[in-house]
């Protein structure tokens, strides 16, 4: 891989490395905090660093949606529920027999090795010939045109899925259902 050492390229690399370290560090923090409240707060850092990645990939609309939908709505819902159920501390490596933990680490490690090997094999092939993108790529107007013209059916199905999930959440949380 030949790197062009222009000034803007170096700046983009620095931003990418900072976002990548923030992303991985906050992901490890999510799964290793004993208090779920801190885990949810670490997830906000992860989502923010991923939004930076999306900006580097010229996907401005998805970056904005990421911050609004995930950090703004999903994590706040998590925080409300964690505050509602109260603090339940649990250390990451404590539960279950030892072979379960060993199996979990082995499964995650095998998955990781598999992904890295596949990406490494592809990196010299189809992943090395990138196409040029124009200035309009990823802008809200471009996304909206694709979303509401080419993928209108998927858009409508998504809204139906969200509606059904909201109804399910209301039914699960409603006070009228009594415990048997």
């Amino acid at each position, binding site marked *: 891989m030949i790197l062009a050492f222009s000034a803007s390229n170096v700046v983009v690399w620095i931003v990418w490395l900072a976002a990548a370290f923030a992303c*991985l560090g906050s992901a490890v923090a999510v799964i290793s905090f004993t208090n779920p409240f801190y885990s949810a707060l670490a997830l906000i850092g*992860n989502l923010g660093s991923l939004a930076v990645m999306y900006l580097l990939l010229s996907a401005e609309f998805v970056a904005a949606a990421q911050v609004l939908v995930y950090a703004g709505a999903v994590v706040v819902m998590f925080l409300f529920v964690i505050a509602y159920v109260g603090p339940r501390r649990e250390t990451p490596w404590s539960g279950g027999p030892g072979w379960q933990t060993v199996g979990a680490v082995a499964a995650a490690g095998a998955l990781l090795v598999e992904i890295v090997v596949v*990406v490494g094999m592809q990196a010299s092939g189809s992943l090395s010939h*990138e196409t040029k993108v124009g200035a309009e*790529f990823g802008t809200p107007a471009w996304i909206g045109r*694709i979303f509401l013209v080419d993928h209108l059916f998927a858009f409508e199905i*998504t809204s139906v899925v969200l509606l059904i999930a909201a109804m399910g959440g*209301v039914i699960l949380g409603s006070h009228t259902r009594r415990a048997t």
Partner: protein
Amino acid sequence: MLGPDVAWYVALSGVLFGIGALGVLIRRNTLVVLLSLELMLNAGNLSLIALSRHFHNGAGQIFALAVMAVAASEVCVGLGLVVALNRRNLSLDVDTLSELRG
């Protein structure tokens, strides 16, 4: 494209997915398992958007937005279950939750 190749983004997404999968496997608290699921969904999103940029195909970004909607639905139902479990004074430990019959 300035900065790293698309392979770097996909590799980062793979590592992030591995961390999320590890969290799902080793944690016992239902809430933290849901948070780790979010990590895995976000790893998939990063991959989709990087390859959408690479192949100049907008469908990847549309799929990423659909994944966000599905993640919101999943959190809605999952947290509804957590609230229902908490109201019945059941444990939130995923190992003790062996049946969902209300």
